[in-house]
C-alpha cells in the first residue's frame, strides 16, 4: 500500500489553500463549509489544477514537484475520482461509461455494483443511487491507487443516502486505498472515514478520529461542526478541581476540563437530559429555560431550550408533555461540558 503525501499551496479566487497531508491505506475525510477549498485539494491531487508551490507524491512516485519541475498530467496519475455530480458521460451507456476507465474488469464491476441490469441504459435513465454506483465503478475501472470522492452522498435523497453510506463505507474498508472524501457533513465524514480533517478558509483546523473531534474540539468551529452547542462564558478555577464558567447570562456551569478566560462550553445534544424540575441525579449542570421548538427525527426529538439543543427519545418527550413554552431544566454532567478557547 502506497502512502499519499502532499504539501501544497494553491491560490484560489478568494482564498489560499495551504495544506499538508499524509494518507496511508485509510480514508481521510475533509470536512468544512463550502468555499473552504476542499474540492480544490482533490483537483490538485488529480492534476486538474496546478498549485503554485508544493509537491504531491504517491509512494516514491512524484506526481508534482514545483521545485523539481515535475507535473504529471491527470491521465498519468492513478486516481479514481468520483465527481460531486458524478460527471457520467451522458452520451455513453452505463457499460461504456465504466469501460472508459478500463475495459479489463467491466463485467466484474457491473456485477459487483449491481448495475448490470442497467448496463445498456444511458445515465439519464437510471436512478440517483445507480448513478452513484456507476460513478464509483467507473473510477475503479482504472485500477486507481488513490481514491478521491467529492461529496459522494450529497446528490442523493435522504432515503438512498443512508443505504449508500453503508455500502460505500464497506467498499472503502475493503479497498484499503488511500482515500480522500470531501464532504460538508460531519455525520457523513464520521460514517465513512477513519480520520477527519476539518478545513476552514483553506487551512486544516484540526484532524483526528471522529471521536477525537467530538470529545476534544480544539476550536469553536470544530465544536459546532460536530454537532455541539456552544455556550460562551468566562472560565475560572472552581470547587472540587472543576472549572467554573460564568455564562454570559450569569448562569454557572462546571466542567472537568481546564480553561481560563474567555471560553465556549461545548455540549452535545445527546448528553443533555430534560426534566420538569431539578432532579437528584449525578449531573452537575442544570440550566432552566422554556422549550422554544421541537423537531422530530425518527424515534428521537430534538428540543431547543434557550441556546441548547437536547436530543431525547420521542417517548421521553411525550412523558414530559413537552410543548413550546413549557418550562424545563436541561441537565448535563461536568464531563459532558467541553471547553474551547474563544478569541478576544
Amino acid at each position: 500500500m502506497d502512502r499519499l503525501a502532499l504539501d501544497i499551496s494553491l491560490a484560489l479566487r478568494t482564498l489560499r489553500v495551504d495544506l499538508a497531508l499524509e494518507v496511508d491505506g485509510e480514508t481521510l475525510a475533509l470536512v468544512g463549509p463550502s468555499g473552504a477549498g476542499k474540492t480544490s485539494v482533490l483537483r490538485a491531487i488529480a492534476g486538474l489544477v496546478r498549485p503554485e508551490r508544493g509537491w504531491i507524491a504517491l509512494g516514491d512516485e512524484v506526481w508534482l514537484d514545483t521545485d523539481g519541475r515535475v507535473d504529471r498530467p491527470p491521465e498519468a496519475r492513478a486516481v479514481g475520482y468520483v465527481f460531486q455530480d458524478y460527471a457520467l458521460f451522458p452520451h455513453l451507456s452505463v457499460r461504456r461509461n465504466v469501460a472508459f476507465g478500463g475495459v479489463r474488469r467491466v463485467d466484474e464491476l457491473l456485477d459487483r455494483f449491481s448495475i448490470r441490469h442497467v448496463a445498456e441504459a444511458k445515465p439519464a435513465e437510471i436512478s440517483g443511487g445507480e448513478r452513484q454506483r456507476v460513478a464509483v465503478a467507473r473510477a475503479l475501472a482504472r485500477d486507481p491507487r488513490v481514491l478521491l470522492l467529492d461529496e459522494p452522498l450529497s446528490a442523493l435523497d435522504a432515503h438512498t443516502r443512508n443505504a449508500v453510506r453503508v455500502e460505500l463505507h464497506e467498499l472503502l474498508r475493503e479497498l484499503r486505498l488511500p482515500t480522500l472524501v470531501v464532504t460538508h457533513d460531519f455525520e457523513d465524514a464520521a460514517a465513512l472515514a477513519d480520520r477527519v480533517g476539518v478545513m476552514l478558509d483553506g487551512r486544516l483546523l484540526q484532524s483526528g478520529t471522529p471521536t477525537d473531534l467530538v470529545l476534544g474540539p480544539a476550536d469553536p468551529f470544530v465544536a459546532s461542526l460536530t454537532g455541539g452547542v456552544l455556550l460562551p462564558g468566562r472560565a475560572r478555577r472552581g470547587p472540587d478541581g472543576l472549572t467554573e464558567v460564568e455564562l454570559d447570562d450569569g448562569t454557572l456551569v462546571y466542567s472537568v476540563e481546564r480553561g481560563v478566560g474567555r471560553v465556549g462550553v461545548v455540549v452535545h445534544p445527546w448528553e443533555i437530559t430534560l426534566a420538569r424540575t431539578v432532579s437528584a441525579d449525578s449531573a452537575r449542570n442544570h440550566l432552566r429555560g422554556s422549550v422554544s421548538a421541537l423537531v422530530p427525527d425518527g424515534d428521537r426529538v430534538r428540543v431547543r431550550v434557550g441556546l441548547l439543543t437536547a436530543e431525547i427519545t420521542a417517548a421521553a418527550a411525550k412523558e414530559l408533555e413537552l410543548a413550546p413554552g413549557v418550562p424545563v431544566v436541561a441537565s448535563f454532567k461536568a464531563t459532558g461540558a467541553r471547553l474551547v478557547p474563544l478569541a478576544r
Partner: protein
Amino acid sequence: MSARAGFTALLVLAVCVAVGFLLLPIVAIFWEVGLRGLVDGLRSDVARDAFRVTLKTNAISMALILGVGTPAAYFLATRRFVGRSLVVTILELPLVLPPAVAGIGLLSAFGRLGLLGGELDALGITVGFTQAAVVMAITFVASPFYVRQAIAAFEALDGTMLDASRTLGAGPARTFWRVALPLAGGGLGAGAVVAFARGLGEFGATIMFAGSLQGVTQTVSLAIYQEFDVNLDTALAISAVLVVASGALLFAVKVLPLWTGSRSTSPSLFARSAST
C-alpha cells in the same frame, strides 16, 4: 375592444405582415416557373453544370471548414490566452465583410498579380478563375458561420466531463474525440448546416475571384444571375430548387440540436419554442 385585445391584434398584424412579405417572393418563384418550366429549366446544360460545380466545390469547402475549423474552435473554446479575442475577431471578420471585398482580398492575395501570385506561379499553381478559387471563396465566406457556432458549442460543454475523461486515463486527444466531439455534436452539426447554406448562396466573392465560367466556376447563384438575362425560366427553375434546399437546411438546423438535445448541452442556433 379592450386595450389588451387591441394590443394583441397589433402584434398579430405585425406577424402577418412579416410572414407575408417574406413568403410572397418565394411563392412567386414557384408560381412563375410552373411545373413545365421547372422540368425544362433543370434539363438545361447550364443548370446541370451549375449544380455539379456547386455540389463539388461546396463539398470540398465543407471538408476544409470542418477539418480545420473544428480543432481551431476547440482550442479557442478551451484555452484562455492573451490575444484570444483578437484571434476570434479575425475568424469572425468575414461575417461582416462585404463579399465583394472578400473577392478583392482573395484576388489581391492569391491572384496572378497578388501577394503570393509570384510564388504560386513559380510552383506552377494558378488559382484565380479556377475551381480552386471557387472553393477558396466559399471557404472564406462560409467558415465563420461554422467556427463561431463550434466555439459556442465547445464553450457550453460541462468542463467536469473533460476533467472526468482525463482522470479516467484519457489524454487530451482521446478526450476530444470521445467526449468533447460527441457532446458538442448537435451544435457542430447546426453550425455546419448554416455554413453550408451560406456556401450554397455564395455570389460576390466567387464572381470576383473565380469568375463565372459554365462547367468550371459557375455555381448555381452565378448561373441564376447569368440566365436572368438569357432564359428566365432556367433562372427560376434553379431558384426553385434552391428554395427547397434552403428550407430543408433550415429545418435540419432546427431539428439537429433536438435530435442530440437529450444528451448534449450545446445550445441551438435558433431559439427553441417552449413547447418543444
